[in-house]
């Protein structure tokens, strides 16, 4: 089964990558862009999607600094 895990920096944690991308967008002339945050997309094939939350908690995300979202776990 195909699954996607989105990992994001938690709200309130400074994301300098997002800030840098936001500045670059502004320099390119894109007005009105704010709150750019950069996370990570993990795609995987998994036999038992019920194990995904534990995978996220233990390895794929660091719950102290990141939140995760499991997408498309259904086949």
């Amino acid at each position: 089964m195909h699954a996607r895990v989105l990992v994001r920096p938690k709200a309130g944690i400074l994301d300098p990558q997002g800030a840098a991308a936001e500045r670059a967008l502004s320099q390119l002339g894109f007005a009105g862009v704010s709150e750019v945050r950069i996370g990570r997309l993990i795609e995987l094939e998994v036999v038992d999607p019920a194990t995904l939350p534990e995978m996220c908690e233990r390895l794929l995300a660091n719950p102290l600094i990141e939140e995760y979202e499991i997408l498309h776990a259904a086949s």
Partner: protein
Amino acid sequence: MKFGVVVFPGSCDDVDAQLACARVADVVPLWHADHDLQSVDAVVIPGGFSYGDYLRAGAIARFAPIMTEVIDFARAGGHVMGICNGFQVCCEAGLLPGALLTNTNLRFVCRQVSLELVNPDTAFTRSLDPGARLSIPVKHTTGRYYAPDAELDRLEAAGQVVLRYAPGDNPNGSLRDIAGVINEQGNVFGLMPHPEHAVDPLTGSSDGLGLFGSLRESLSGSSGPVLVGIAKSGWSVAERGGRGGRGGVAEPREPDDGDASATRQRPHPTSDLPYRARPVV
């Protein structure tokens, strides 16, 4: 007294860490794939890019075979020092509070920093002068210490913030200028600066040696100071006796050309240590 230095694929400061440990104790490398701490009295997790730092710094190394033993050792009260990547590994392993994030300026920073000793009453800082300022290098991209505000308050109140970057010298955006923290039990210490790169005046500072010496002193019980301060310039080993019987002692290097020989007459400071460094090329 035997220290162990963990060696992961991607560790790059393991040799310097072993040389630093060898100033104060015997030292053995601990291979990441082994399940054997070789009866060491303390563990150092060195800097580098363990397992490529893929996913997050330290996230995969934290599950290396040797880490099972390191975590058990720490949970049982064994002393562990995590330096830079080792600090990240300790945080990922839950041995230390908080996490290390990408530097605010997104750049790799490699320079000497000035550190304030916040807590001189730990097993890792006890032989340092209270109020000392230490000059120790940092070199990292992922060194911004983070913990939630309430946790930071708790750490500060409990004396778990051991080192801070001196005012104006925070190289990475660490919250509250935190450079090094210790766990609640006082046996696991992590820091982003590299004390193992500051153990000889030859490289500009020997302020880092006091951390290794403190650990040795703490583990030796009442056997007295292992290191003595020499003026303000740093530290040197006070006692080297009673450590004979070791083979494989490296000879001082021969000067390889006449012009430079004048600067090489002094034996290399580590030439009589038990650990045989990689051949110098």
